[in-house]
């Protein structure tokens, strides 16, 4: 096709500032577009011009544009509504609460004198997610490097797909696998850690069980590994080839090249990928609900029979909750929503600020 080859030389038609939609980055700002408002945009003016020339059929443009804009607005409205309705249903329960919601450790909202607080649950959520992050991030970065720089080109995308399959396994299946396989399996390694590394407070304690914080963190780590690996991989693939080749040309080994050019370039991306993983680990419900022993103690001894999280508590406590109980669970869900919102917004701001990561958002 000769036509396709010659198109780049043809100047695109110019209707004032109203070019065809930009196919490039969404972050670009057309000059003067911002303060003109949404209604009198370029498409409308072009439509008006057409009608003046006598070509009909532009009548549907207004409604179509409106529908598209409205759909976007619906998304924003849903985000706002999530916050609003959780607050609405949480407030009565918080009023009925007889202690401080933020510091209380126990959770008895179904009693006649409701006593409940987020303390132990929030602690468990944060501790298990951070443990999962510490376990998952190094492995995920290794997987990403393997796929982007070590695996044979031909196999790379297939191997990436295999890692993505980890994310396709439903969380309830991980939970089932966790209680049937991982809990008994973890008993021996846990005893080993306790015996030889017991002087570290994290692995200390007198009692060692399979259904521990560590086992749950391990399942969480498996579940967040694919997202961290996928985003890191995209970021590593976008390292400028010239930098890599320059390092190699100066005599660097492959690892030195990665350390000098790939890792510095990818660091912000890896950090935000880890934060997205953290957000996901915090919100993960069913897998940990099956594994956690659902206690309300605050301890750093991750091998003992302790552990709970906000999400797991919602799943376990919903069945027998009274009205105040439901309100209390919704209040805890609101806290979870706010925490994950902050973590995710932080991560997205890091990604969005760098244009070269634009395609890496998974």
């Amino acid at each position: 096709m000769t036509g396709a080859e010659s198109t780049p030389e043809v100047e695109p038609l110019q209707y004032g500032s109203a070019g065809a939609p930009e196919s490039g980055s969404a972050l670009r700002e057309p000059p003067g577009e911002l303060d003109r408002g949404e209604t009198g945009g370029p498409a409308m003016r072009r439509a008006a011009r057409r009608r003046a020339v006598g070509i009909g059929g532009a009548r549907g443009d207004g409604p179509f544009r409106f529908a598209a804009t409205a759909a976007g607005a619906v998304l924003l409205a849903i985000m706002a509504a999530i916050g609003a309705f959780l607050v609405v249903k949480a407030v009565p329960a918080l009023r009925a609460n007889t202690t401080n919601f933020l510091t209380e450790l126990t959770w008895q909202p179904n009693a006649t004198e409701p006593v409940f607080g987020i303390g132990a649950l929030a602690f468990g959520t944060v501790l298990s997610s951070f443990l999962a992050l510490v376990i998952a991030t190094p492995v995920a970065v290794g997987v990403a490097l393997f796929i982007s720089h070590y695996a044979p080109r031909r196999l790379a995308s297939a191997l990436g797909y295999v890692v993505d399959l980890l994310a396709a396994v439903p969380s309830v299946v991980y939970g089932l696998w966790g209680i049937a396989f991982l809990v008994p399996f973890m008993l021996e390694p846990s005893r080993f850690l306790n015996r030889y590394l017991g002087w570290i407070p994290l692995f200390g304690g007198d009692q060692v069980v399979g259904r521990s914080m560590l086992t749950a963190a391990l399942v969480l780590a498996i579940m967040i590994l694919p997202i961290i690996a996928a985003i890191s991989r995209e970021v590593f693939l976008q390292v400028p080839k010239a930098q890599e080749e320059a390092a190699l040309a100066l005599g660097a080994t492959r690892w030195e090249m990665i350390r000098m050019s790939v890792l510095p370039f990818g660091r912000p991306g890896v950090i935000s990928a880890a934060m997205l993983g953290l957000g996901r680990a915090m919100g993960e419900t069913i897998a940990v609900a099956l594994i956690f022993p659902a206690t309300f103690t605050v301890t750093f001894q991750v091998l003992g029979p302790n552990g709970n999280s906000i999400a797991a508590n919602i799943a376990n406590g919903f069945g027998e909750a009274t009205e105040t109980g439901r309100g209390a669970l919704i209040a805890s869900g609101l806290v979870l929503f706010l925490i994950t919102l902050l973590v995710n917004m932080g991560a997205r701001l890091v990604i969005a600020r760098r244009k070269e990561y634009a395609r890496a958002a998974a």
Partner: protein
Amino acid sequence: MTTPSTATVRTGIRPISVGRRVKDRVVQVLICLAFVLALIPLASVLWMVVKNGMQRFDLEFLTHSMRNIGARDVGGGAYHAIIGTLQQVLLASLIAVPIGLLTAIYLVEYGNGGRLARTIGFFVDVMTGVPSVVSGLFVLAFWILVLGMPFSGFAGALALSILMMPVVVRSAEEMLRLVPRELREASYALGVPKWRTVVKVVLPTAFTGIATGVMLAVARVAGETAPLLLTVFFTDSINNDPFNGPQMGLPLYVFDQAGRPTDAAIDRAWSGALTLILIVMLLNLVARLIGWWRSPARKGS
């Protein structure tokens, strides 16, 4: 690369020292090890699900519900859960796909990178991180507690659609951006208005890519348990009406059976997990096949 130590010609190129070479090797081994380490749980999960799931994965399991099955009885099946999952996921898609697709069209065709478009784009990203249990709680608070609707499959579909929307928007947006600008310009040059260009030229070009994205989004929500737990509730009977009364879903079925203390229930949980994984993997496979069949992404980039 390296000159042998016996070389008489002095090139100034020194061989890579042993220390550096060893370090390079060690890192290579570590990175390969990380990849293998990541595959171990996948293999273990799949193997256990297939091994344990096959024990009860028979015709009775696929065609019977849990009605009148006592706490200690063997038998029973997941028919009611399969029906529930299919209906809930279908309803969720019916809600999420149009909204998601239109939002993507707004972002690509009408947004022009303005303030509203950037805000929507940012919150779509943030929305992908909304925990599934929170979307369930939202529907519980809004639909069931405030509006006074009953627990139903439709309430579950609402919760699932919230999880689905951002995924649909992101994948559709990416596909729409890959449609060559020349196609749009050719259409404009023929005097076709913008909306007809979008409907008749842009969408058909990007169709396969969008379909892939939708299938992946469906596969993602089909395995969600937490939102169903809070909105669909439990039932052991077949309920074909997603708008009325508690339903069941496959993930919920697995969770329910896994929490029961008998071996028969655990076996049913494994078979349920196998069915669920088969459905999810099938959806994934269909998505990849659609993408492989005719992908604008492949030609575009």
